[in-house]
């Protein structure tokens, strides 16, 4: 896997660097980074830090998409888990609050997985149910208000740092490593890709396609709950109304920018996270540019199209070295 990355990820890396360069042009102090209160501080750091929730989501989403699924509920799951963590943080010890939040995420993932793998409901509808109801559940937990907390342990996920690296970035990194170890260190990755590539054939080859499907949704729920914790810790409160709102689309976008096909099969976790960073770099750039906000969406659309255009099979086909490997993606 690691060996394949440089070649497969070239367009993404170039896109990321290009956006960073543009940011530097619109805001010359973009790369200024200093050390303050024991953590790194600067616009570039913001890109990583702000990108953390979507990056976390994109890890789980990459796995789900690899099985030909999609999880629209991740934003709502973020809200639920943030609400759980925030409302328990001040009254219970940190492990309880965290455990409950992660447990809630696993439960949500399990629910989605059961609908898709066992009841056979189409992923987009199955997860739409929790997307709608989940935000309601989150609001039910907070009763529609913003539940603030002061527990420093939970707040660490937002403002703390590990060796100067913001805690949220460290969480992303840790989760990425763990997931990569889990899917590439075992045969899970192969089986997930096989399931997404051709579920019928994989089942006949003895792959437990149902278990794979269930597992990816559960993992996606876990990733979403971490994202929810990070988001809640960031503002030291759970905003059930807005936490993770529309982030599911960003997560899907990140995975696709990371080169995955929505028709399942091959996935790369590293590139999905890079995709999330590309999106965030673009958002940060927009904020730094000083354009009026009415332009935000237009800029976003243009950049997204440009980034994907670079990877478009039709255009990439012109470069002989990458011709195969892509032409099979879309049928």
């Amino acid at each position: 896997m690691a060996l394949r990355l440089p070649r497969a990820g070239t367009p993404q890396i170039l896109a990321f660097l290009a956006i960073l360069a543009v940011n530097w042009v619109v805001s010359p102090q973009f790369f200024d980074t200093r050390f303050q209160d024991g953590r790194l501080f600067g616009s570039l750091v913001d890109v990583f830090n702000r990108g953390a929730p979507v990056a976390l989501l994109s890890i789980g989403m990459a796995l789900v998409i690899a099985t030909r699924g999609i999880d629209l509920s991740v934003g709502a799951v973020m809200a639920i888990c943030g609400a759980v963590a925030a409302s328990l943080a001040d009254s219970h010890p940190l492990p309880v609050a965290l455990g409950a939040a992660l447990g809630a995420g696993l439960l949500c993932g399990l629910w989605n997985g059961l609908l898709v793998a066992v009841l056979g409901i189409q992923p987009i509808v199955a997860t739409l149910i929790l997307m709608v109801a989940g935000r309601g559940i989150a609001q039910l937990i907070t009763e529609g208000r913003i539940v603030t907390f002061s527990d420093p342990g939970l707040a660490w996920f937002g403002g703390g740092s590990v060796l100067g690296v913001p805690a949220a970035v460290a969480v992303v990194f840790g989760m990425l490593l763990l997931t990569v170890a889990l899917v590439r260190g075992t045969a899970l990755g192969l089986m997930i890709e096989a399931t997404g590539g051709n579920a019928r054939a994989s089942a006949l080859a003895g792959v437990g396609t149902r278990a794979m499907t269930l597992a990816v949704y559960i993992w996606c729920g876990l990733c979403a709950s971490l994202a929810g914790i990070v988001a809640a810790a960031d503002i030291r409160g759970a905003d059930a109304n807005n936490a993770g709102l529309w982030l599911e689309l960003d997560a899907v976008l990140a995975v696709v920018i990371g080169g995955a096909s929505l028709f399942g099969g091959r996935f790369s976790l590293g590139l999905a996270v890079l995709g999330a960073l590309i999106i965030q770099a673009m958002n940060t750039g927009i904020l730094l540019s000083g354009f009026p906000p009415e332009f935000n969406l237009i800029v976003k659309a243009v950049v997204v199209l440009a980034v994907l255009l670079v990877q478009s099979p039709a255009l990439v086909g012109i470069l002989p070295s990458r011709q195969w490997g892509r032409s099979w993606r879309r049928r």
Partner: protein
Amino acid sequence: MPTTLPERPLLEVRGLTKSFAGLRALDGVDFTLRAGEIHALLGENGAGKSTLIKVVTGVLSRDAGTVALDGRAIAPRTAGQAAEAGIATVYQEVNLLPNLSVAQNLFLGREPTRFGIVRGGAMRRRAREILKDFGLAIDVAAPLGEYSVAVQHIIAIARAVDLSARVLILDEPTASLDAHEVEVLFAVMRRLASRGIGIVFVTHFLDQVYTICDRITVLRNGRLVGERETASLPRLDLVTMMLGRELSEATHERSHAALDGGSAAYASFTGFGKAAYVAPFDLALHRGEVVGLAGLLGSGRTETARLLFGAERADHGSASVNGRPVRLGSPRDAIRLGFGYCPEERKTDGIVAELTVRENIVLALQARRGFLRPLSRRRQDEIAGRFIRLLDIRPADPERPIGLLSGGNQQKALLARWLATEPELLILDEPTRGIDVGAHAEIIRLIRQLCADGLALLVVSSELDEIVAYADRVVVLRDRAHVATLEGEAVSETAILSAIAATDAVAGRHAA
């Protein structure tokens, strides 16, 4: 090149070249088709036959070369444009739409309309007429996907024929057909040829070549080897042209190992069956024995295989392995017991197109080991390398997505997938479909070898000669029921044919 006929060629291809990512699939190929002839396009798996067809019909772009139809250069960019120019094609994999009805498939893009409204009734009537020519009396309003590949293949051919083109190209149309349908197809082909239509015919069955083809063009490794009149090319020379070496034709003789009746069965099934799927049957499979399943299309061979493998759950009867009763609830159960199953529809049930050849080969083995015991990359490379060499999978690149391999090579990789699990019972459904003569011989030798090592083997095949060649016992199916068993010296093509044709069966007892 012999140009005995004075007339201008119908289709003339000159210097056609096509490369894929450093792999030269076609290298300056010339090809000439005359009006009214049936022209065989032959070559090993991966020789470039399908690529030639795709480039000519504009599905793939060409790097160099010209194509002329009736002396006028053409450069179609889509299959549609090629069809408009007069070239109708049946590509190697069935390329129809399972979700549309049979009639819609036949008429897609050229439906009869009145005031822009499709005339469904007229369309279905025409569809029935067209299919009658092919001996197919089916419900044309039913979705195509409800029919077997073989039927689908006939429909694809019927569609191409009905386009009444100048040129008809058939890429391995007979791979999934049995003798009877092949006859029907040949009759149609002769009729078309007599009307002046030029036909390009790709196949790996040399008998068929000699039955129907006027001339032969042979490709090897993307290059033109030569063009000959069929009549002037002895079979052995043809094989040598194709392989670039001689093939010892010692493969088709065998000794029907008369089973010593006493040996206990490895796996036995009693009263095994499923309502509206396959009637209950008894079957015992012994180590070292090859059992053939014979029957017409839709007779229930694939269904039997799927039941034995747990891909479909039986609702009658019991199964036992090594004398112990077992449950066959899913393919996983079967694999755990040491079964393997190479399905007939390689595109939908076999390959995972996007994964590499290596990954496809190790998939079943890995699944059996469980995800917690991954095969190391070294082991994977070693296994993939071994089978690529053993089965001569080309190109010999384990890291190529399998979907980019030629059909025959995909089939070999699937076989490798199951051989890699070192199964005790291997069920092969049409294992040699689309496999070239050289590899065919290899595979049959391999099957023998495996049996000698104690493997129990069940083979479904539409090639009767092939079944006769290696089966020790043949079970004949008709109308989804097992109707006869031939053993030892009783196994012969005529015996099988007469068992199939026996009239005591209730005719037309199709499951609804």
